[in-house]
């Protein structure tokens, strides 16, 4: 079973598709959660997910916008999609008939 931050990371990477890399995923997570996402948490989680075979990463091209530094590109693997789906289903099931809307 995925952890909550692992799920956020996989989902952000899946949404970004070909454009998924460190900074972009971080922005997605910050926009969705409205909380700061630390680089440390992002990269250590990315490593953990890669070890589990849920994502694949590789060094991409460098851009001037990044001061000539390369990006760490991310792609969600089939196993990653399965794990995220299973997590989403579990959250949906457990949330059935429960309303968290603020009155």
């Amino acid at each position, binding site marked *: 079973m995925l952890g909550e931050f692992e799920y956020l990371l996989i989902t952000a990477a899946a949404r970004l598709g070909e454009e998924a890399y460190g*900074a972009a995923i971080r*922005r997605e997570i910050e926009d969705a959660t409205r909380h700061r996402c630390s*680089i*440390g948490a992002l990269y250590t989680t990315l490593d953990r997910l890669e070890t589990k075979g849920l994502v694949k990463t590789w060094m991409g091209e460098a*851009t001037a916008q*990044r001061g000539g530094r*390369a990006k760490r590109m991310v792609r969600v693997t089939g196993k990653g999609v399965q794990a995220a789906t299973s997590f989403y289903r579990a959250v949906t099931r457990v949330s059935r008939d429960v309303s968290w809307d603020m009155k």
Partner: protein
Amino acid sequence: MSPVTVLDALLRRMADRASLMLDSAERDAVCGDLEESRESGSRMLREVLGLVVRRRAACLRGWHPWLTLVSLTVPLSVLVALVSRRTADGTAIYLWLYVNNWNWALIHNQGFWRELAQCAPGVLLSCLALACWSWTTGFLVGCFARRILWFSGAVFFVIVLAVGVFGIPRFFDHILVLPRARDFRSNSAVFLATFYRQLFPQCVQLFLVVLPAWKGMIQGSRMDRFARTAQVFLLIAAATAVGTLVSTNLLWWQMRVWDIWPLRQPRLPSMMPLAIAGPAAYLLTSFVRRARRLATQT
């Protein structure tokens, strides 16, 4: 340029320096991400340090680092610190004898020169042995705790410092040879002086323990540049040197070496000359490696 801009530039520079502690690929990705996100200098520094701490902490997971720490780093650092303290106190007595009681008339005294010739080699050899043991222990720590060298190194130096300052519990009195020079009343004049009591042992620790051990750690962490046979040779030499370090600290061994054991048992040889085995083997192996490389180049 406003002070805020200067401070921001300084923090960015610090973040860049801190990022050197990361792998080169990760450094590229992280610094690029922070640059792209237009983070402030303080934020950049915090983010980079956060990742560095996480990476370092990750190395401490599992039993291997802790086993190395308990079985190698801690006992060796205690033994080296004990020898350092004994050497410092022993040397302090001779130093006090010659420096604090100096009289130019002594130069013309034959007895002075005879006494000096008797004690100087012993003092110098004990200092050499201490430096060699420190290098060897550092080398072994660097070799077996390569991934957590920052941690093992810190523990090593903290223990050396702590044992130097506070000593070790008298409970170990019947196992280890503890420093005793200060207990004898005849030496009290020496250790009444703050220099010999506090400053001199710290100087000995710095020059004969910390610096050689630091060098040894760095060289030990690069052990894999040697061929397998050379590595085995180096480890055997280091183990021999550590054997001498242990034997010189064990009370029962020293009693037998000093020939004051009351029972009729064979006297054990002092293994102190083998203290240089570690650094000597390293110098020899490095020389052979360099010579071979030169031979292949020409």
